[in-house]
């Protein structure tokens, strides 16, 4: 991290050969949070990008070492706050795997539906923010209108709009709201009507296409080498959907396609997310009418103690492969916990992707990486 005097020095001095060093962030409209990029420019062309992290680092990994296995789940909501539900699921799955807790089918179904709703909500927000990065302000509001329906569903069932805290080891905290199924169906109907709007406004727009096509290209080899996951890697043609590779909950039972594009540019990443929303809708449609009756939470002990050993759980969040790695000594708290966040690896590819492009391209590239800063800093 730069200390204060160095930052001032950086903004006033030219680098060697007339390079311009610009501090983009930590307060910049396009970094969506407190990401700090030190961008070396040659005119408008980017020569080097160096991310400086840690502005929102809370050392969640250290914090979790003093929390019990029931408590640590809710800290993860604050990491990738746009897919907090999926993060919670990952932690719950890990505890269930470690302690061999049976999860009732009903809970698994509801978890899957909520996970997919979270994914749609996250992608909706991303479309809005991404369009805003490229200078189109209006799609943001249209995307938020649909997202609002999801947050309403979440509010009804989970009691909160963003950090849901609804998953407990063994199932759900309480049963779904009686209106849940109807509301989800209403959402699906509205979503299908309105998703064409993005096509008119954004996807087919000639300016948007020229801004994103061929911009920020990431080859499949680089995507693997940089550890990219989620839509970023799938846009480069890497099959990496954890829901397919290592299915959890009821993903093994539902039919859906892993969306893969091969171009590897910003437009491909955009298309992957748009198509992924449709796949999520497909999953929800298969499950929403067949939620089985029964318990919503399995039988668990009052005090959870993971056996001695190491556990790893991977899930697919809206941004990619989220991993929880716990080393247990047999106590009520983890000995060491590591969160493998998708954003951290995706960000490391940014410099490679944006080198040699224009400042405007950096916004398109960064926008399509879908960075959530608390997820990167943890």
């Amino acid at each position, binding site marked *: *991290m*730069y*200390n204060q005097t160095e930052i001032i020095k950086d903004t006033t001095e030219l680098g060697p050969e007339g390079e311009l060093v610009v501090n983009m962030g930590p307060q910049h409209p396009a970094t969506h949070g407190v990401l700090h990029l030190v961008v070396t420019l040659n005119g408008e062309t980017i020569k080097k990008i160096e991310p*400086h*992290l*840690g502005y929102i*680092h809370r*050392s969640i*990994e*250290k914090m979790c070492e*003093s929390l019990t296995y029931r408590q640590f789940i809710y800290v993860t909501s604050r990491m990738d706050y746009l897919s907090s539900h999926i993060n919670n699921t990952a932690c719950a799955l890990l505890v269930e795997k470690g302690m061999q807790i049976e999860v009732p089918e009903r809970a698994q179904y509801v978890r899957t539906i909520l996970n997919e709703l979270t994914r749609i909500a996250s992608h909706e927000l991303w479309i809005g923010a991404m369009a805003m990065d490229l200078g189109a302000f209006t799609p943001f509001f249209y995307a938020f209108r649909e997202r609002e329906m999801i947050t309403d569903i979440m509010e009804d069932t989970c009691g909160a709009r963003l950090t849901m805290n609804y998953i407990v080891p063994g199932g759900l905290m309480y049963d779904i709201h009686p209106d849940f199924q109807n509301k989800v169906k209403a959402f699906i109907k509205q979503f299908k009507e309105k998703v064409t709007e993005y096509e008119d406004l954004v996807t087919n727009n000639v300016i948007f296409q020229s801004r994103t096509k061929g911009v920020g290209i990431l080859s499949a080899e*680089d995507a*693997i*080498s*940089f*550890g*990219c*996951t989620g839509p970023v890697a799938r846009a480069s043609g*890497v*099959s*990496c959907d954890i829901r397919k*590779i290592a299915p959890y909950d009821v993903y093994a039972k539902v039919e859906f396609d892993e969306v893969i594009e091969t171009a590897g540019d910003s437009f491909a990443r955009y298309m992957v997310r748009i198509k992924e929303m449709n796949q999520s809708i497909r999953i929800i449609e298969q499950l929403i009418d067949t939620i089985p009756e029964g318990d919503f939470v399995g039988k668990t002990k009052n005090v959870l103690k993971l056996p001695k*050993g*190491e*556990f*790893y759980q*991977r899930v697919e969040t809206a941004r990619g*492969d989220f*991993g929880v*790695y716990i*080393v247990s000594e047999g106590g009520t708290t983890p*000995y*060491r916990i*590591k969160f*493998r966040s998708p954003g*951290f*690896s995706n*960000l*490391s*590819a940014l410099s*490679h992707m944006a080198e040699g492009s224009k400042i405007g391209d950096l916004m398109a590239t960064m926008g399509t990486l879908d960075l959530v800063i608390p997820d990167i*800093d943890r």
Partner: protein
Amino acid sequence: MTNEEIKVYISSHAPSVSYDETGEWLNLTIEAAEWKDLALAITRSPLKMDYLFCLTCLDWKTHLTMVYHLTSTTYRHNIVVKANLILDKPQIETVSEIWRTAEFHEREVFEMFGVHFLNHPDLRKLILEEDFKGFPLRKDFEDPINMIKL
């Protein structure tokens, strides 16, 4: 590839490896000095461990352990590689030119655990301030000002 085949292949490259199959995936513990050669070997055919999805470190109070979670995007088999390091002078060869994602992860481990990665291209602090003292994720780290004991 089954675990047995992986074992055979790895043993042919690094004879001193010990295995542990109690967990979900095959765990191997290696000498820190052998890691770079083994890393180069397992990225090649037939293992093709091309995807390093998690890199972290454990503090066992007596020693540190580097943990590498690897998978193959072609064959989908996973292995976990562990290397023990001495607490006083932890150092291991970097793998950032083999898996480029390791560059950031190693920088994180460097500042959080104080592990030195030899030949790392840019080993600086990534998250913490430059003048930060101590290694926060080690077990003996104490910060009486900012840490609240509950």
